């Protein structure tokens, strides 16, 4: 039995026991359904190919380099399922190519992570949550389905250092959501249903209530404000439900946080190393995503993957550890049929099916090691646990640089 770090989501659970037999995963212990499925692996491994014909990996990498070299406006996209080491190489590659680089945070939690890195929010570690947090607000976040061990390992159920009575006495958890999510079912009695897009209105009502004004809102907002006011150590776990809803004015959440001195804000991240990419690009450019290197880094919303595809402004796309054909609006992905797509992934995806070049890679955390950044910013080591012949994302990036 070996212990590995799960890359199913950005909790990066480090307590996963795996039984390996004949160099294959036989059994996974402690992981959630998603994590266990990821560690067991997919049924359709990707094969290297060029123009839909099987090729060896070196030929695939050379062809990919040729496509990127010949493109006037290439984009490198994905990165949330790659190690930090691969991401740093990818940023170098983007610089070398004068390419656009963007990641899934561009249409996910980028808005909030950027504010965390710019220190606009107070935040804390997941260990702080476990040891000290007494009021937990899951806002537009169904952790039970997206980060399934969040409540059991860190927030609601554990007996933390200063919260020895756990959820029975020491902790209050509330859910603000448009549907009665799995997390809302656990936090019975403290479920606040809002209409789709109603987050801003609730934030304004809460700010009124916290300032002693009477909000023009359902009176339950006073109850919620009361719970938040009494917190010794509170946390708002901001899910994409909240982020999408306030995307036109994310600073409204900064304004609410300013009225809650005992609260921390934690964006709930899905992809295991999305925050890693945001931090790596931020260190290099001062921005978390949507960069074009033109001798110097230029940030522009037109470099968001969604805008670049909609405006058909890129002429080649390298996708690593993401499946834009699956996760982006169907109405904009038609541009992918007109440009060469390079797909790097351990598994066959919708995007790999239309790609001009496919490059299979190792499953990070299982077949290759490295490091990653947990949703709270802590760097976590990923030991590879299975010997295999697949190249890691980092090795593929190095191969691309060499081929250039």
């Amino acid at each position: 039995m070996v212990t590995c770090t799960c890359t199913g989501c950005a909790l990066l659970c480090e307590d996963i026991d795996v039984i390996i037999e004949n160099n294959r995963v036989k059994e996974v212990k402690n992981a959630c359904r998603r994590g266990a499925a990821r560690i067991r692996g997919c049924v359709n491994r990707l094969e290297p190919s060029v123009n839909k014909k099987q090729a060896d990996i070196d030929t695939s990498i050379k062809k990919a380099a040729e496509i990127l070299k010949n493109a006037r406006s290439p984009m490198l996209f994905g990165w949330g399922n790659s190690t930090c080491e691969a991401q740093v190489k990818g940023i170098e590659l983007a610089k070398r190519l004068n390419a656009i680089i963007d990641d899934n945070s561009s249409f996910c939690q980028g808005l909030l992570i950027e504010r965390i890195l710019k220190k606009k929010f107070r935040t804390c570690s997941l260990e702080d949550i476990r040891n000290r947090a007494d009021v937990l607000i899951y806002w537009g976040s169904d952790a039970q389905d997206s980060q399934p061990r969040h409540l059991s390992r860190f927030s609601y159920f554990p007996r933390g250092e200063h919260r020895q009575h756990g959820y029975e006495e020491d902790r209050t958890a509330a859910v603000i959501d448009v549907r009665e999510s799995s997390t809302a079912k656990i936090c019975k009695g403290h479920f606040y249903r809002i209409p789709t897009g109603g987050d801003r209105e609730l934030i304004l009502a809460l700010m009124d209530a916290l300032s002693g004004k009477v909000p023009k809102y359902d009176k339950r907002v006073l109850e919620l404000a009361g719970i938040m006011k009494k917190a010794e150590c509170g946390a708002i776990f901001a899910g994409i439900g909240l982020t999408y809803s306030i995307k036109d004015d994310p600073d409204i959440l900064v304004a609410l946080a300013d009225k809650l001195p005992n609260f921390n804000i934690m964006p709930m991240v899905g992809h295991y190393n999305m925050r890693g990419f945001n931090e790596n690009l931020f260190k290099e450019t001062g921005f978390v995503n949507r960069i074009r290197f033109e001798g110097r880094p230029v940030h522009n919303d037109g470099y968001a993957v969604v805008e670049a595809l909609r405006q058909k402004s890129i002429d080649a796309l390298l996708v690593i550890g993401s499946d834009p054909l699956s996760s982006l609006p169907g109405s904009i992905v038609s541009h992918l049929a007109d440009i060469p797509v390079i797909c790097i992934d351990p598994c066959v995806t919708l995007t790999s099916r239309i790609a001009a070049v496919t490059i299979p890679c190792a499953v990070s955390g299982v077949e290759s090691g490295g490091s990653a950044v947990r949703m709270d910013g802590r760097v976590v080591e990923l030991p590879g646990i299975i010997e295999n012949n697949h190249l890691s994302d980092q090795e593929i990036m190095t191969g691309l640089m060499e081929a250039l």
Partner: protein
Amino acid sequence: MGIDIGKFLKNPEYEIKITTYRDIFQAEALERDRFGEEYRKLSAAIMMSKNDMKRMGFKPGDRVKLTNDNGSIVVELRESKREEPGGVAFMVNSPWSNALVSGDTGGRGIPEFKNISAMISLAKEEVTTIERLIIVR
């Protein structure tokens, strides 16, 4: 004056609002095989409240067509097991729900994945396959 039979045969359409969510069972199926039957079953579906289904004359297991300016898909209708006041239907985030999402983001780059308007009607066609969603429009 004859009876307008067409009026009775016409498949009534209703406007609905759809929001998307995540489901751990679907995420597990995605990790295993995104081309598999399990992933299709857990993705190509829309959940509605009992009241909404009754109002529209639908029943659980019906196939429904969801159409808007961005696309058209056929999915299976299910009754929400959660307590829902109605007015909003729910789909797990997937290529099926994304077929209905507008690419117009007002230049901000974040689509309305969770705020979809569409028309719903009973469908004779089979549930849209994932292969059909790969065909780049």
